[in-house]
């Protein structure tokens, strides 16, 4: 069993082979799925907690504060302490709420984000499923979360929640378009929707450089639209705490609230991963064709580090957005999408198609 931090393919295959030799195929598959599920569950929790901590630290530094610094060195156990606190909190039952939907909603939100992770390539050979329509799958699945938000708002029997949920519905449905179209721009350039191939194709240069200006525009549009899709500031209208107290999750408490909270951060992680994969080459090191020595040095850094670095950069950018800008109003939010992002995106795809047609890209 060869473990290689530059290429996980053989490692995974050896586990796969061992399992199939050892067990009947059906059970081997079950065991495999369970392992992957558990690994993802663990990673989900860890990444979620880390992101919450990171967000609090980042925003603190932007605001001349130090942020959490009491629990553990530099406060690294703060989020764990918070999590324990949330676990111990009472789950408040709301009078006249729709019990079933009220209880189901957080799970829908969290499952939607959980499903999207499956398709993301973390390093060479390190992904759960390599769909040949990976990009489309992620776009489709990640927008399922809005169902949970709508249900949460509707079933809470609270007007604030309802307003928040309706806002969120309008918002996500609109911005889904821009997310899809900006990814489509890159699909036009790459000619494939499979994540592994998308990454491989960037070995000679990331798409954001390869695709000239249209790729840069698509990147910016994707950043804006995906920030909106994850309900983060400045597009956090669904929970707009100065208007709607806490929006759709006003009535949630304890661990159910934690689910919403965690899902928000995981969604951010997912869109950052997609942005990193599609625009910045995923785990692919930074290559400049022609400079062999430089490329070798870059190859020396493990792909997982590249991936994490790029994702972290995009997450940092999204945090910078959140902690700098005031919130938009709902009609302005929709204006931004339908008047600016969508037309720009459409024209952008045309230009990109033209560039690809003429072979002007690198």
């Amino acid at each position: 069993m060869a473990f290689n931090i530059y290429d996980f393919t053989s490692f995974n295959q050896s586990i796969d082979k061992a399992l199939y030799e050892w067990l009947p195929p059906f059970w081997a598959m079950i065991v495999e799925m369970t392992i992957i599920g558990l690994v993802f569950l663990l990673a989900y929790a860890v990444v979620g907690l880390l992101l919450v901590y990171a967000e609090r630290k980042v925003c603190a530094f932007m605001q001349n504060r130090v942020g959490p610094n009491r629990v553990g060195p530099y406060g690294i156990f703060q989020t764990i302490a918070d999590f324990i606190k949330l676990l111990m909190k009472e789950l408040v039952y709301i009078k006249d709420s729709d019990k079933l939907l009220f209880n189901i909603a957080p799970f829908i939100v969290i499952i939607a984000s959980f499903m999207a992770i499956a398709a993301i390539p973390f390093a060479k050979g390190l992904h759960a499923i390599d769909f040949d329509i990976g990009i489309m799958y992620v776009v489709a699945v990640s927008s399922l979360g809005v169902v949970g938000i709508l249900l949460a708002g509707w079933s809470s029997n609270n007007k604030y929640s309802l307003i928040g949920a309706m806002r969120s519905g309008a918002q996500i449905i609109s911005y889904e378009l821009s997310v899809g179209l900006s990814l489509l721009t890159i699909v036009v350039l790459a000619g494939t929707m499979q994540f592994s191939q998308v990454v491989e194709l960037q070995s000679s240069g990331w798409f954001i450089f390869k695709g000239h200006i249209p790729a840069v525009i698509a990147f910016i549009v994707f950043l804006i639209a995906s920030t909106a899709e994850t309900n983060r500031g400045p597009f956090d209208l669904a929970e707009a705490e100065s208007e709607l107290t806490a929006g759709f999750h006003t009535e949630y408490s304890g661990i159910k609230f934690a689910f919403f909270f965690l899902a928000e951060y995981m969604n951010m992680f997912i869109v950052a991963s997609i942005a990193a994969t599609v625009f910045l080459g995923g785990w692919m090191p930074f290559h400049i064709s022609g400079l062999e020595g430089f490329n070798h040095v870059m190859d020396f850094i493990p792909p997982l580090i590249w991936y994490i670095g790029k994702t972290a950069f995009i997450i940092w950018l999204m945090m910078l957005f959140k902690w700098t800008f005031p919130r938009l109003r709902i009609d302005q939010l929709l204006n931004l999408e339908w008047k600016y992002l969508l037309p720009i995106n459409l024209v952008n795809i045309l230009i990109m198609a033209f560039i690809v047609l003429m072979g002007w890209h690198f």
Partner: protein
Amino acid sequence: MKEIINLPVHSIEEEEYHINMGPQHPSTHGVLRLVVTLQGETVKKVQPHCGYIHRGIEKMCEKDTYQQIIHLTDRMDYLSAHINNHAVCLLVEGALEVEVPERVKYIRTIIDELNRIASHQLWWCSFGMDLGGLTCFFYGLRDREHILDIFEESFGSRLLHSYYTPGGLMQDIHPNFQKRTKDFIKYFRKKIKDYDKLLSGNVIFENRSQGIGVMSKEDAINYGVSGPSGRASGWSCDIRKKYPYGVYDKAEFNEILRTDGDTYGRYMVRMDEMRESMKIIEQLIDNIPEGDYTAKMKPIIKLPAGEYYQRVESARGELGIYCISDGNKTPVRMKFRTPSFVNLGVLDKLSRDMKIADLVAIGASLDLVIPDIDR
């Protein structure tokens, strides 16, 4: 005997619904309760309900001597405590026809302006927070801290100072006062540029505030909206210019007037007022004359029987104090015309047919302080 009390019932149209903003709501900054009638997200009517923090300050004044009244006025508009104190002091000094030393006038004016800046800073950061820019909140508080330190060093407290007494001051200013104030102005001139970069020029902020809650000059006068909110509508109502007190007549400053009357205008007036206040302080800080820090006053102050009115320009608008005395050491009636209470009245008119997010922005731009509304 059966009596039918006709309470005015607000008829509710189809598809309209009420929400209660407050008494606990993040954007009402206290215990103000707004019953908002909405249609979808559009505000149809706003009914403010006051009284959640009513402490009966006006009634309490009737049992207090004039020296004791001062510490009560701190607690009305706690963000411009000095200016409230100033109003009482001016009222008593005017009634007794006491001439306070020049030094006191200078110090009072400088401290009032510092207080105004501190109040506007807090307004700025909570305004940013109401619009969703949480970082503003920390920048504003960070800079306000410097003023509070100046206050703490000289008067021993940070928010409720009770520093002015009828006839003068509690004690002389701290020897460091002038240096610290000058340092602060140097510091703040730099930091206020950040404020502009972060909020004033931001395209999202401009869209959120321009053309939102437009108040015409007539409305401002009819509703009595004074202070920066009134001046944003073009109503020249600065007491410091119109009825100068302290040494405002010796300092050179502009009355900031704008004509747009929207949320953005009210925002800009306050931003410019901070700069004007710094200008006033800079002119006065080096020229504080030597002298006593208080005039000779009798230990028991009795105002001659009669009615008195004194107004000052607080950070929120015109603060008026109406006082009836029967010649005793306590007043018979004290009435405070607090700016926040009057400015609240126009909220309903401004926010009709706006979105619920605009209601928050308008409320923040009027700079309401809830204890000032309820007293």
